């Protein structure tokens, strides 16, 4: 890895890419659809997810155990002012929290779950500052005069909070709060402003950071200033092979969403909760769409006149209220007809629509 790392490797990348491209392009591209699989329905899938058997439990446990011998070293490095960055396949959440709760008992530990979709970084930093404040209060000898907080932390600006955490509050630099960030590359923290704030937090004298990354391109989030002077990472490859339970909680199951069967099913559930008249209006639209599969949709006027004929609605207003309901549940959509008219259509494939009609007419 030392010597011939440079050029060969780079050409390797390029070559692999084009080989892969070729494989996809020239070879007969499989055009089979996901819907060809006999998909189990989502609830069953979720139920199965709960009882999924894990493989290699014993080996994983002993692997995690083997990392315990590194704990003292990690603590030492944290004390020396480094940040720890854990990477490798498998959820590192349990490992890091175990490390924090067994080896870092002498300082407060604040955990940020970066894998969640939205995180208010300001609130998180406030919590960190409060933890530091608590810790400083208890550490202080009674004789020492400690400035009172003039302002509650949650009304202070980010700059003030950072200045507080970076200040020199104790003569020896041994009082720090440890910030654990699971998935510092996660969706909630991925934007560059947040990363800048995190870098500045990491650079504070009273803060030590332990973070994990899972994305292969995570290092691209940081520039050299952040890496070398602020985060000051020490990398650790700690593959755990523990399933990403918490991290994957908001990821949709790929076989459960998007499939036509699935959307027809949800549509049926919605429709069954509506009044019979509303269902009939939807049926009119569906039948029209099945009869004219090539048309762009059904003009609202046409729909109105047919519904009126069948005594489904009495006025444009009642029709509109039905349509609004459909739209809210994404049962129908509008698009502009080529002659400029707005028309309605159901965003389902023909087979799915047929199945849906069967379902609701039962």
């Amino acid at each position, binding site marked *: 890895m030392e010597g011939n790392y440079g050029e060969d490797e780079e050409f390797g990348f390029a070559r692999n890419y084009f080989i892969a491209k070729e494989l*996809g392009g020239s070879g007969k591209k499989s055009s089979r659809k*996901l819907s060809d699989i006999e998909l189990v329905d989502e609830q069953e899938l979720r139920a199965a997810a709960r009882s999924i058997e894990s493989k290699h439990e014993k080996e994983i446990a002993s692997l995690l155990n083997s990392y315990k011998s590194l704990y003292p070293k990690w603590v030492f490095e944290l004390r020396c002012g480094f940040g720890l*960055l854990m*990477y490798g396949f498998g959820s590192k959440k349990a490992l890091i929290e175990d490390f924090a709760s067994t080896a870092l008992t002498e300082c407060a530990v604040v*955990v940020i779950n970066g894998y*969640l979709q939205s995180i208010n970084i300001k*609130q998180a930093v406030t919590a960190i500052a409060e933890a530091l404040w608590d810790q400083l209060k208890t*550490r202080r000898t009674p004789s020492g005069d400690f400035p009172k907080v003039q302002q509650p932390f949650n009304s202070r600006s980010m700059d003030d909070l950072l200045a507080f955490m970076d200040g020199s509050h104790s003569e*020896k630099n041994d009082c720090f709060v440890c910030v654990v960030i699971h998935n510092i590359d996660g969706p909630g923290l991925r934007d560059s402003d947040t990363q800048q704030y995190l870098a500045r937090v990491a650079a504070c004298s009273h803060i030590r950071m332990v973070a994990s990354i899972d994305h292969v391109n995570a290092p691209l989030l940081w520039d050299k200033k952040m890496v070398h002077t602020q985060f000051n990472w020490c990398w650790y490859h700690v593959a755990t092979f523990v399933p990403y339970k918490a991290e994957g909680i908001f990821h949709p*199951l790929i076989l459960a969403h998007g499939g036509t069967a699935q959307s027809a099913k949800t549509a049926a559930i919605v429709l069954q909760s509506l009044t019979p008249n509303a269902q009939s209006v939807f049926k009119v639209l569906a039948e029209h769409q099945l009869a004219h599969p090539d048309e762009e949709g059904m003009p609202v006027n046409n729909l109105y006149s047919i519904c009126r004929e069948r005594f489904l609605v009495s006025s444009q207003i009642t029709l509109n209220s039905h349509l609004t309901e459909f739209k809210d549940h994404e049962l129908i959509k509008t698009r502009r007809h080529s002659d400029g008219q707005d028309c309605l259509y159901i965003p389902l494939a023909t087979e799915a629509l047929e199945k849906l009609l069967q379902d609701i007419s039962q």
Partner: protein
Amino acid sequence: MATPDHAENDLQPFFVLHKALVQKSVRKSSGSRKIRRRIELSPISAKNAEKMEIGTGEEWDDHHYEHLRMEAFNFVWSKIESTIKDVLRNINLNVFNEIHRWVCESFDAIKSCGTTLTKATHSYPIVTDATFRQLFTGLVFTKNMEFVDDLMTFEELGLHLKSHGCHVANLSSIDFSANNGIGGCLRSLLRQFLMVTLDAADISILASWYSDQGNYNKPVVVIIDDMERCCGSVLSDFILMLSEWAVKVPVILIMGVATTLDAPRNILPSNVLQHLHVSKFLLGSPSERMDAIVEAVLVRLCSGFCVGYKVAAFMRNYFLRQDGTLTSFIRALKWFQIACVVHFSSEPLSFMLKALFVEENSQGFWSEEHALFPEEMLKYAFDLPSCRRNNTEERTGENLAHDLSELKRLQKCWSTIVLCLYEAGKYNKIQLLDLFCEAVVPCLGNSTASNHHLGSGISSSSDHSIHHQYLISEKCSFICQAIRKVRDLPVVLLYQLLKSWEKLTEDVIEIHDKVKELQSLLKFENGKSLKQDLTNIPKRHTSRSHLNMDKDSKVLNEKAARLMETMVRDYMQPVECIPFHEIVCFKNVDKLQSALMGDPRRRIQLDLLEFQKILLCSCCSNSSKAILPSMHNTSILYTLAQEHGDLINLHDWYQSFKSTVFQPSTKGKHKLKQSPAKKRKDTNESQNQSEASIQVRFCRAVTELQITGLLRMPSKRRPDYVQRVAFGL
């Protein structure tokens, strides 16, 4: 590991895992007090205190040594850090002084322009004269694209100017982002000058601060460290604003420029440029700074801490591979830092380093202290590979102490000679880093008499071949080049060289004497002509005496080169050839590399493709490449993905996953275990169930691959395909 309440915490954006334990913190604070006391005390009584502690502790007390190690780290690192800072400050000092002079001149110019200052304090200045609205601007050229390197330089510049009585604010490109607009940089300015944070930042506040507080007889300097990375429009607004207020707050701008003189013109429009009154300053080049750091930290051994040859070579490669001659010494700084940490946390003996190199009179210290070494530690020390050859030696603290001070002496010789070589190499533009890397290779001078230590350093043949390669790859070694240069030097330069050698070798008497001898020879032989030579070379009259002198000096050159060769051969013992070097020398290049640069892209893929190597399970460690159903689901899926092109058809992928998981071999095994009758009864149900479980395993594995970023999810356009992201490791 996970407790039930964790499940709830999993969904919190953040939470406090635990607070600092009070009990422990008490114990800890008492511990730190102990250390403080120890520091306050005079060295001798501190030693006694330590002695007592060890005495009562009876045995190898981990906690105690942990403390010592931490102290040793702090000691070494603070020394290295301050050395580096000093070196850099000295390099930049001239430029800093120059800048300060310019600031003062500019300020005088501003003051003389306006008797205006007092007048201006009363009302908003309406200035029509364009010269009033010029901003004095210093462009500092860093000659370095790596702006990280210069962050510290500008910080230092700020401190330097502050200490000379200027008001200084340091801004960076983050303050000039388009998001924050001009408010961002103003807020930052007010923060730094007035120490307040205001939501409604306004420059009039700054102006009143400047005129009110009696601040107005000092110049106001604003330093922007990386001008090229600033958002152009915000920066030009900022400059326009400053120039409008130039009379009330005469700000002097200093901007760091990494590229060329064009940079301001590329970023700023011309109506802004005309407000700048530009002066230029040049910083030292990165390679100059690098050499200075290498000299101070690695060759002069400011901390007593050194690195092995593999580490040195790795560092050098990293420099060259990363950015050619544009070296970034922040990186270097971090290397040493990491090297120290890694070393101290893995080498139980390295805390002795401190004692070894602080104490001036190390001999005395050791004779007093050696009795205190616990048996285990002595055993450990004498079992070090570099020392095992000396089985005959008695394993006493005295011997250890003696060997350690010998180690110190030899290192001193080594560093002296490297510096002498560097002096010679300077005439050939040889960089110290190159020389250094060569000088630490352990089997130099293999054929000489001094190689009785060598067995320890390079026992394996692989080491030898690495070294061999190393030399070949350098065409001719830098040391040879330096010595050859000595042969070719003209007399004047030779004279200077000897002079510098004389100074360098002061501490090593044997060499010093020889240098002196050579010097006197030079003076003697060229007694008269040298002076002539120094003043005016072309005036030498007869060609014959010229020839003679040439010959004489050639002899001298030869002698100097010989001396150099002997020095290299006899005194330059690389640290890895000296017993007990493990205590002070960091050699583990792999550790350094892995701590320094993670390689998630490669490693995560390897984790998936070769997980057996990490999990060490018995079921999957089949040497063949077959995919076994017992493998980790995500591993199976990713291995299967390797057979696809850049797009993976989900259906096909799922089918191959399913068939892999249902491989007949293991299914057979399972069947054997269960009774066939029972099996048949719930086949239908179990089939359905297993279908669900396979699908959910597939989903999970896809999600996990998505989390690692190795897959891109189906798009609206291609609902049945996922996209591969990584090709090859």
